[in-house]
């Protein structure tokens, strides 16, 4: 790290570029890059063929597919619900608004295992919500649907909290202008509000999906963890660790890392295309 890193470049109005970038890189390396590097190096002791063999089991594919598809579905489910919650919080004043506002953050604060147990108790075939649903023929607990539900639970705050400030700053005049130009409520929402919120919605979706992919605590209780059916990839890693198959566990981790990176890359590119201006 060179002290006057920025002096070789153009003179800047904001000082401290070299120092702040250096600190950032050092910290990121310690806490993110080096552990990730270990994750990449560990399975390499199996060799490429070994990694492939370790990942080619149907059980691994099923777990990865469940983790990613359920995470995407949960994030997608959170989009309309999160938007609605943000809308209610920003646009209306009603008794209990602050309480509702605080409740949105609960999934952040709650220990995930507690959330998982509560969800399981609720949606188990004999639970408050599980029983009537079971009567309708819908099984939630111990199925992929339950996995998705737990993921939606932990991801909701991300959508609400990313959309909320953008919605609050949205000028009312734009909606009024749309009205004077003859647009109905639906048209105003679709053509004026939604496009303005789209980048925030995409960011919320991305974060919710990322969180859901890595979610462990709240999912494993409701999932039931049946291999090939409701077993998520993070759980499979723990299972392999318990069998002292460290390299195999790291191989699944590597696969998750790669897929997550790919997903985030696509979503980030999408957000860049959103605003051509």
């Amino acid at each position: 790290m060179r002290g006057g890193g920025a002096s070789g470049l153009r003179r800047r109005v904001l000082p401290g570029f070299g120092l702040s970038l250096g600190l950032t890189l050092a910290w990121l390396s310690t806490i993110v890059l080096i552990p990730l590097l270990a994750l990449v190096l560990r399975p390499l002791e199996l060799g490429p063929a070994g990694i492939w063999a370790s990942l080619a089991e149907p059980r691994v594919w099923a777990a990865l597919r469940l983790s990613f598809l359920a995470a995407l579905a949960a994030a997608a489910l959170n989009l309309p619900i999160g938007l609605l919650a943000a809308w209610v919080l920003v646009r209306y004043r009603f008794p209990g608004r602050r309480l509702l506002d605080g409740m949105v953050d609960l999934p952040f604060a709650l220990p995930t295992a507690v959330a998982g147990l509560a969800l399981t108790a609720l949606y188990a075939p004999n639970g408050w919500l599980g029983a009537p649903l079971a009567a309708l023929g819908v099984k939630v607990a111990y199925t992929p649907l339950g996995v998705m539900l737990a993921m939606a639970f932990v991801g909701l705050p991300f959508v609400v909290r990313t959309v909320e400030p953008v919605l609050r700053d949205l000028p009312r005049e734009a909606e009024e202008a749309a009205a004077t130009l003859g647009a109905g409520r639906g048209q105003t929402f679709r053509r004026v509000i939604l496009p303005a919120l789209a980048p925030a919605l995409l960011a919320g979706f991305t974060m919710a999906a990322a969180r859901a992919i890595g979610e462990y605590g709240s999912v494993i209780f409701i999932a039931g963890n049946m291999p090939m059916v409701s077993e998520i990839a993070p759980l499979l890693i723990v299972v392999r660790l318990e069998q002292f198959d460290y390299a195999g566990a790291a191989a699944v981790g590597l696969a998750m890392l790669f897929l997550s990176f790919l997903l985030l890359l696509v979503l980030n590119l999408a957000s860049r295309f959103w605003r051509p201006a």
Partner: protein
Amino acid sequence: MSVEILGLSRRFGEAQALRDVSLSIAARAFVALLGPSGSGKTTLLRILAGLDFADSGTVRIEGRDMAEVPARERGIGFVFQNYALFRHMTVFENVAFGLRVRPRRARPPEAEIGRRVRRLLEMVQIPELERRYPDQISGGQRQRVALARALAIEPPLLLLDEPFGALDAEVRKGLRRWLRELHAQLGITIVFVTHDQDEAMELADKVAVMQAGEVSQFDPPDVLLERPANAFVAGFLGHAARLPARFQGGTLRFEDPGLGTLPGAALAVAPRREGAALAFVRPHEWEVRCAGEGPGEGPGEGGRNAVIRASRPAGGRRHLEVDLAGLTIEIEVEGGAGYEPGRPCVIRPRTARAYS
């Protein structure tokens, strides 16, 4: 399109934004709502557009009661103070918006939309900007886009909220002239809100002067300047000096003894009652004699009551700032020489508008 406003009142919590306002605006009129901030002019404009609702009173447009008509069915053009352009749409799409949201049956085909949008952009003189986004153009250009967007629905009534407020002087001047031409060309009714009296006087056929939620006077500019209805209008318009006086036996006696008296016949507006009065004198209504050479008289004449503080040329005339016993008075005089700052002078009003 004629607009009939009857007994309109609107309250925001403690503040009374409009107080029993009545106005009658003829079709094809060009009307300004003029007043200081907080006088209720923007509220009135928003109620006309259907963006706000009166607590009591009625608005009739072309004879039709507007109480139950939502903004989107009124077909009234509205230009917002900050333009309120759709930032995620190009200039073209902004202008096309009003056509695209029409019900399918009334929506023009794509080619026709394109033709109309381009014609509008041509009319507001920015055809080259159609692919740009609002963030990529200047304030004056945004104003033109906002106008074109409002005009796209071919409104018989166009409302503008402080249309030139955020623009620099040169752009503002050009846009004013252009808006007046547009009014003549389209034959629509225009109502605009402004706090700039010169703008109101230059553009409008009729100006409604508003104060604290009430319309003080609604008259053509000439009448407003010649016969202000009350002390507020007289003080608000024409850059007049405000001078305390007494009206007794048909004569106005200024409180400042150096200003002397004015006979009732010399007053443009005389107070209704005898007693304390407030007199307003405009910059061109002063008699100025300065000491030394030049147009003034020698120091022999008594009662030099004022000192010139600043003096600048103003198109063939001269604009003075004169100190009258601590009061700053604006005066306009003919000719140039003899009005250097620091020179003592005698100033006397030739006429005044006085209100009891």
